[in-house]
């Protein structure tokens, strides 16, 4: 079993949830345990953590990235 956490600012709707699960199963197969977390601090977007690997698509990270590039 691989632990997966999905972090968003609001609960995912059905369409997005399917997309997310597809993404996770593509990366880690079907043997996963998904935990959904609501976190306002990430400002928007989504953070998916599969095992030790983080896919950070949050607005917060994009802003810090943008700041680094200036």
């Amino acid at each position, binding site marked *: 079993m691989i632990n997966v956490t999905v972090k968003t600012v609001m609960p995912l709707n059905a369409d997005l949830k399917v997309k997310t699960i597809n993404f996770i199963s593509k990366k880690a197969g079907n043997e996963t345990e998904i935990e959904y977390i609501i976190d306002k601090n990430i400002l928007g977007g989504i953070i998916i953590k599969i095992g*030790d*690997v983080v896919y950070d698509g949050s607005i917060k990270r994009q802003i810090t990235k943008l700041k680094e590039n200036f």
Partner: protein
Amino acid sequence: MINIKNIGEQLKSKINTFTPEDKGRTTGKVLYCGDGIIKISGLDTVKYNELLEVEGGYHALALNLETDIVGAVLLDGESKIEYGDTVYSSGRTIEIVVGEELLGRIVSPLGEPMDGLGVIKSTKKRPIEFSAPAIMDRDKVNEPLQTGILSIDSMIPIGRGQRELIIGDRQTGKTAIAIDTILNQKGKDVKCVYVAIGQKASTISNIVNILRENDALEYTTIVCSTAKDPAPMQYIAPYSGCAIAEYFMYSGKAALIIYDDLSKHAVSYRTMSLLLKRPAGREAYPGDVFYLHSRLLERAAKLNDKLGGGSITALPIVETQAGDISAYIPTNVISITDGQIYLESELFNSGMRPAVNVGLSVSRVGGSAQCKSMRQISGQTRLNLAQYRELAIFSQFGSELDKSTQDILSAGNRLMETLKQPQYLNYTVEEMMVLLLVAQSEIISNLNHKEMKTFNAGLLSHINSTKPELFDELNSSKLNGISTELKEKIYSSAKEFIVYLHRDENE
């Protein structure tokens, strides 16, 4: 004029071109933090020497990869990191900005400006660790790099692409030689990089002022890690400096890099290694302390014409304790470099400055880079000096000396006097040739060695005002060697000047 509307437009276009890309990044958790070291669990895909990002915007360098734990050294934020903080891998090694924009600037080993002159606008970057040029990419060292110091350029010539160690006790003028060499590169299209490793901030600020006063800062970059910086910063400083110099080399230019000094570099690496619990070897240095310096100095090279013919000349500095050149670090660096300039505190205190011990100093490849006429003139100098030194020790016993011995001694005294050179006074090659020719001739046998200082200075200005064409002739004789007629012309000028110097006594 700054147009406020434009700023908005520019910002918008910049934001539009920005593409946030996010591949998956491996993460880990901080298990231990202390003495500038962090231990991390997780991070299973991390590579050796990879830059890590710690939560809160701090950086670390992965150095120990073990079964469950990664050991890393912190580059910043030592007191801010807590147990359990997330660490991200970045998939790249440390990079530094490079380019012409860095000339005249003072930067940290990470490329951040330290001089308050604003951001460095270069977009070019290079990794600080880079493999040295391959054998087939190299060319023979065949172009001289003039230090402007008579005793070095005549007897221990340095070529572009050479690595020449400057070694000596504290307070023997090691940095002075390096700074003089930078000053002498003015107008010669050599880009200089001065790397200060664990130096006092006051020393660095002095050096900056000297370079600025002499208009040498415009072709020099200073990479500065002071004694207050953490050990990892001091450890990466020479590699960063080398990356800056490499940019010039690979774009076909000549670069000069000074590492001041590598003993402190070894000490900072020892600090890191001991804290990382790596086994300690001789003098408590880790096993790879030789590789630490060899991989750095191998990056200095002369490239072949196909690659642009650029070069990096490296002048590493090593400080010895009580003249002991057989300590660990000095022997290591001596064996890596193409020769060494050995400075002695005894010579320094007896007023011989620069305090170069010509007997123990060598240049293994610079000879082929020296111009022919200079080689011709300085060929005997080394022997003359060796003979003089031997007799000088013998004569200290106060025994009666015959005439020929006395002659050798006084000629040696005059030659030693000629080799003395005040700081920040650089001779051109032509001036050096005149001084050495005259100092080794019979003409001045009547001069007392105490007069040599005035004589030499006067002779140069005398030739400059009466026969400046002599310097041009010397310059054109560089390739084919110096002719007997030209020698005679110089001798006759010197004779003229001796008469002039002694006119008051004769009257």
